[in-house]
C-alpha cells in the first residue's frame, strides 16, 4: 500500500519534505518510521490524517502521516 509521509523541521534533513512509501499490508507507523530511519526518540508529534496516533497504529492505503520532532510553541 502507498503511504504519504510528511516530514518537518530537522526530520527533513537527508529525507526530504514528502516521502511516498510503499509498505506491505498490515504495516504500522513504526514500520514507516523504520523505513525512513527515524528513531522513536526523534518523534514528538505523530499524526495520521491530522489526528494523534501512536507508533503501533496500523496504516491503510492512502494514509497521510505527519511526523514532527520536538519543536516549538508560539
Amino acid at each position, binding site marked *: 500500500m502507498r503511504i504519504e509521509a*510528511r516530514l*518537518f*523541521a*530537522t526530520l*527533513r534533513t537527508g529525507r526530504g*519534505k514528502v516521502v511516498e512509501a510503499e509498505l506491505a499490508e498490515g504495516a504500522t507507523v513504526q514500520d514507516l518510521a523504520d523505513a525512513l530511519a527515524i528513531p522513536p526518540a526523534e518523534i*514528538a*508529534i505523530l*499524526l495520521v*490524517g*491530522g*489526528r*494523534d496516533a501512536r507508533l503501533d497504529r496500523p496504516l491503510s492505503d492512502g494514509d497521510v502521516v*505527519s511526523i*514532527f*520532532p*520536538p*519543536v*516549538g*510553541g*508560539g
Partner: protein
Amino acid sequence: MFGYNGKILRVDLTKRTVKVEALDEAKAKKYIGGRGFGTKMMMDEVDPGVDALSPANKLMIVTGPLTGTATPTGGRYMAVTKSPLTGTIASSNSGGYFGAELKFAGWDAVIFEGKASGPVYINIIDDKVEILDAGKLWGKVLSETTDALEAVHGDKARILAIGPAGERLSLLAAIMNDRWRAAGRSGVGAVMGSKNLKAVVVKGSGKVAVADEAALKEAFALCMKKIKENGVTGTGLPTYGTAVLVNIINENGVFPTNNFQEAVFAKAEDISGETLAEKYLKKKDPCFRCPIACGRYCEVDDIKGGGPEYETIWAFGADCGVSSLKDIIKANHWCNEYGIDTISAGATLAAAMELYQKGLVKKEEFGDGPELKFGNAASIVEWTKRMGMGTGFGAKLAKGSYRLCDSYGVPELSMTVKKQELPAYDPRGIMGHGVQYATSNRGGCHVRGYMISPEILGLPEKLDRLELAGKPQWAKIFQDFTAAIDSVGLCLFTSFAMGADDYAALYNAVCGTKITGAEFITSGERIWNLEKQYNLAAGIGPDQDTLPPRLLKEPVPAGPSKGHVHPLDKLLPEYYSLRGWDAKGVPTKAKLAELGVD
C-alpha cells in the same frame, strides 16, 4: 529588600512632576509583581469605569521580582492599564532589555498619570528623572525615534516608545521597546499616546539584590538543564523560532484561514518556519538572559529587523489567504515601525477581506489602495502602513476588527473575544483552548493559558485535542500558572520545560521567601480573580465569556477538524464551578475571601 527594588516612580504628566514612592512590600509579594501587582495597583487607583483614553486612566510599566536577575529569561516587564480595545484590564508583556534596565536603574515600576500638554518623553538615569520635550519625535516611526534618542542618550540607553499608531490612538497600537519587541496587545500603545508620552529612555547602573546567591545558582543550574534538555526550548525554538508552529497547526487542521472560514491553508509550507529559516533568517535575536533565543532577525529586500513570529505569519498569511512570506515580513516590519499589534492588525485585515468578499465593503472605499482581497499579498503591506497612519480606509482598520465589522452591521464576522482579535488557533478543533479563549480576562488571547501545549505539542502530557473531559480543569490550571509566571518577570516559554516548583525555587532564592510551587500557582489564581473583579467593575460581564458565533455554530468545512464546532456551553459551567464561581460566572465572596482578593 531582595528581588524588589522597593521603589516606584510616579510621573504626573499633567503637572510634569515626578515622585518617588516606597513599594508596599506585602502587597507586591501577595500579587508577585508585573501583571498581578500592576492589576492590584490599577484596582486601588483607577476606577474600572474610566474612559481608557482619558487622562484619568493610568499606564503602569511594571517589572517582576525576577526581572533583571540571573534567572533564565529574567527580563520581562508588563504594561498594565485599562484597555481601550476591550474595556478590560490590559496587561501586555514584553521582553528585550528594557525591563531589566529599569530594574538596574532602581525601579520596580513606573506609573504614568494624567496627560502632558504636548509630546514628551521621560529620561531615567538611575534615580535622576527628567520629563523632556518630544515635539521633534512625534510622528516618527520606531527606528527613527530610537535612532534619534540614541543619538542624544547613547546606544547603551534602553528605549521604549510608541509609533504613529499609538500617537493616533489606534486601538491596535502596541508599546514597543528595543526597536521591535512589543507589549503588543489590547491597545496599550494608544493609552500611552493619549497621554502625549512618546518614549521612555532608561539607563541603570545598579544590581538587583539577591537573598541567597548560592540557592539561586543551584536553582538556575537546574532550570537551565531542563530548558536545554527539553526538545521545545532546547532545540525547536532556538532552531526555527515560533514559526515552526505553522506546519504543526496546519497539519492538525486548526490553522485559521481566510478569517476563520477554513482551518487548513493549502500553502502553509510557503510561510512555514522551515521556509523562513531557509530563505530569510539572518540570525537569532535573543532577549535579556535568554537561553532559548526564539527571536528571529530577518532581511528581505531593503527591510531588516526582528520577527516575524508565528502569530504574525498566521495573521498576515493564512488568515488573509496570503502565501508570500516576503510580504508577511514586510507587513511585520511596518507593524514594528508604526507600533501596531501584529495579531490584531493581520486579523483585522482578514475581517476587512471577508467584508469585501461579501460585498459589504465596496471597492471605492479602498481609494487608490490595493483591493483587500483574500490572497492579495501587496494589500497586506500597503494597508498595514495606512492603518499605521490612519489614512483613508486605514482609519477604520485602526479601530480593530470588531468595530470595523460592527460599522457594517455584521459584528459576527469579527473573530474576536471581548473585541480583541483571536490568535492563530481554531478552537473548533482544540477544545480546551476554546475554553481559555472565551474566559480570557483580556479578550482573545493565546498566552493567558496556552492549551496548545498539552493539546497539540504534548507538554507536559498529550491530551486528545477533540476530547472534552478534563479540559476546563486544564484550562484553569494553565491560566493560574501563567498569571504567576507573567507576574514574576520570566518568559512564559520557560514553562515548556519548567514546573511550578522551579519557579518557586528561583523566586525564593532571589526574594528570600519560602513559597511552594502550589502557593505559586495559588498566587496566579488570586491574580486571575482580581482581574475578573476589575473586569466586572468595568462592566465586562460573563456574557462576554464567549466565542464568535462562527466558531460556535459553523462546522469546520474540511481537513482533520472537519465537522466540529466549539461546544462552549458544555464546558463553561464546569469551568466556573472549578473556579469556585457562581453559575453565572461571577467569583463568589467565599472564593475571594479564601484567596484574599481585596
